[in-house]
C-alpha cells in the first residue's frame, strides 16, 4: 500500500513537471503599444496580455511612448530575444511599416490591434476599429443634436481637436466626421487644432480656442482624453452653452455622459475584443493555422444619453 502511495506521488510530481515544461514551451509574446499614457491603451495592453497569458504565453508589454524610434528599438529587442509573436499597436501607419517588415523577415508573426499600417502582406492580420465609420456616426449625431439645440441659429460655429497627426485614426475619424457635417452649410468649423490625443494638451488648446473663438457652440474631439481636457477648459470658463463630442468609450467619458455633463456623445470602441482576438489568432498561428483575413474592421457604436444604459467603459454591459 505504502509503495502504491509513493508511486502515485512520484507519478503526480512527474505529471506536474511535464505540464509545466509544456506550459513554458509555448514561449514569449510581445505586446507593443503606441502609448501607455492614456487609459484606453492601458486597457488594450492589459486585455492582450491577459488573454495571451491565459493561452499559456509569457508576455512582455512594451510602451513606444508615441515615438517610432522607441518602437523600432523595441522590435530590435523582440527579434533578438526570440519572441514568438507580436501583438502590435502601431505608432505611425507609415513609420511602423519597416518594423513589421523586419519582424516578418525574422519569422515573427505580427497582429496589429486597434491601428493598422499602410501596407499589405506584412502583418498576418490587422484588427482595428472602423474609425471612419465612427466619425460618420458621430457626424450624423452631431448634426441632429446641434440642429435641435440651436434651432434659431443660421450658422453654428464649432471647433475640432485632432489627435496625433501621423496616426491613421486621427484622419479616419476626422474624414468620417467631415464627410457628413461638411454637407450642412449651417455648420462652420472656426478652429481645427492638434491636441495629440492628450488630456492636458486638450485642455490647453481648448483654452486658446475659447479665447480666439468665444462664439463656438461645440467641440468635436478625435478621442475621449482630449474631450475630457476640453470639458475641463469649458467648465473652467463657465461656458454652459458648449457641447463636447468624443471618441473611444473611455471610463470618465461614459460616466460624464451618464451624469449629464457637457460631453454628450462618444463612439464606443471595443479594445478588449480586439486584443483578445489578436491574442487568440496569434496562438492559432503558432499552432499552425495560416488562414486569417488580413483586414478586420471591428464594430464601433454611437453612445449618447439616450442609449448610455447599455454601455459600460470600453464596451457593452
Amino acid at each position, binding site marked *: 500500500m505504502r509503495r502504491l502511495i509513493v508511486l502515485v506521488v512520484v507519478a503526480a510530481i512527474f505529471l506536474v513537471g511535464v505540464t509545466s515544461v509544456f506550459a513554458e514551451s509555448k514561449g514569449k509574446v510581445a505586446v507593443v503599444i503606441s502609448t501607455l499614457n492614456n487609459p484606453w491603451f492601458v486597457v488594450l495592453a492589459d486585455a492582450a496580455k491577459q488573454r495571451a497569458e491565459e493561452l499559456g504565453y509569457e508576455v512582455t508589454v512594451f510602451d513606444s511612448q508615441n515615438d517610432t524610434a522607441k518602437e523600432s528599438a523595441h522590435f530590435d529587442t523582440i527579434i533578438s530575444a526570440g519572441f514568438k509573436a507580436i501583438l502590435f499597436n502601431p505608432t505611425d*501607419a507609415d513609420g511602423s511599416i519597416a518594423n513589421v517588415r523586419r519582424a516578418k523577415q525574422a519569422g515573427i508573426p505580427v497582429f496589429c490591434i486597434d491601428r*493598422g499600417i*499602410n*501596407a*499589405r502582406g506584412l502583418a498576418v492580420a490587422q*484588427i482595428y476599429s*472602423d474609425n*471612419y*465609420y465612427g466619425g*460618420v*456616426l458621430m*457626424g*450624423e449625431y452631431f448634426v441632429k443634436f446641434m440642429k435641435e439645440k440651436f434651432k434659431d441659429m443660421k450658422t453654428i460655429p464649432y471647433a475640432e481637436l485632432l489627435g496625433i497627426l501621423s496616426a*491613421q485614426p486621427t*484622419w*479616419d475619424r476626422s*474624414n*468620417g466626421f467631415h*464627410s*457628413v457635417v461638411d*454637407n450642412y452649410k449651417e455648420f462652420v468649423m472656426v478652429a481645427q487644432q492638434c491636441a495629440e490625443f492628450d488630456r492636458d494638451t486638450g485642455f490647453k488648446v481648448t483654452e486658446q480656442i475659447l479665447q480666439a473663438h468665444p462664439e463656438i457652440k461645440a467641440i468635436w474631439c478625435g478621442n475621449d482624453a482630449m474631450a475630457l481636457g476640453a470639458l475641463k477648459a469649458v467648465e473652467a470658463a463657465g461656458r454652459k452653452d458648449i457641447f463636447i463630442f468624443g471618441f473611444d468609450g473611455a471610463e470618465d467619458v461614459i460616466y460624464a455622459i451618464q451624469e449629464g455633463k457637457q460631453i454628450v456623445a462618444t463612439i464606443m470602441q471595443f479594445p478588449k*475584443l*480586439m486584443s483578445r*482576438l489578436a491574442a487568440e489568432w496569434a496562438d492559432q498561428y503558432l499552432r499552425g493555422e495560416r488562414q486569417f*483575413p*488580413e*483586414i*478586420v*474592421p*471591428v*464594430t464601433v*457604436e454611437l453612445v449618447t444619453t439616450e442609449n448610455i444604459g447599455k454601455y459600460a467603459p470600453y464596451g457593452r454591459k
Partner: protein
Amino acid sequence: MRKRIILTSLVVLAAFLIYRSCKVVPLSSIKASFDPKAYAHTVVWPKLQSQLADLKKADAYEVLEAFDTNPEEAHEKFAKTVGVSNYRYYIVEGSGQIVSVDEDGILVQVRPDSEKPEFYITSRVFGNTIVMATGIIKMEDFDRIMDFNLVSTALNQIVRDEVALPIMSSLKDRNVQGAVVRFLGLFNVLKDDPIKYPINVIPLRLELIQGGY
C-alpha cells in the same frame, strides 16, 4: 592642373547625365497620384451598376415581416456581416407608397397594413454602407485604409447625384402622396437593438412607377 580640369569636366558630365536620366518627382505628388473620385467614377460605379442584377438581395416586404416576428432570424436569413461587427447589412428590393417627401428623402410605406411608414429613402448618403453591403470594393485591395474610405465617400456622392437627387427633385412640388416607388436599396441595423422605424435606406435604384401627378 590639366588632370584636375579633366576630372572636373567628367564629374560635371556625369552629374548632367544622371540628372537627364532621372525624373525628380516630389513625394507629395506620388501620394496624391491616386484619385479616389476618379477611381469611384471610372471603375467602381460602372462595376456596381453592371452588378446590380446579380447582387444577393432580399424582398423588402419579407424582411419587414421577419423583423416583426423574429429579428434575429431575419438577420440570419437576409443580412450580411463584415468583420467583427454588431451591424447587419441588408440589400432589399421592393416597392412602396409614398407617404411624404422632404428635402432629404422620401418616406415610404411598404406594407399597406403597416401602422407606420417603414423606410425613409434618403439622399443623404454617408458612411461605408454601400461598399460593406455590396462588397464592391474591399479594404484588402487598398494599401491605405484612407483610400478605401475616400473611394467609398466618392461613391456615396455619385449615388446621391445619380440615383437619389434626380428622382427627388422630380417629385418636388408635385402631389405624390400615395404614388408608388420601386427601389433597390441598402441599410444596416445593430443586431441587438430593436428595429427603429423608419429605417434609413440608401437607394441604388429608384423609380416612380405609379401615380404622382
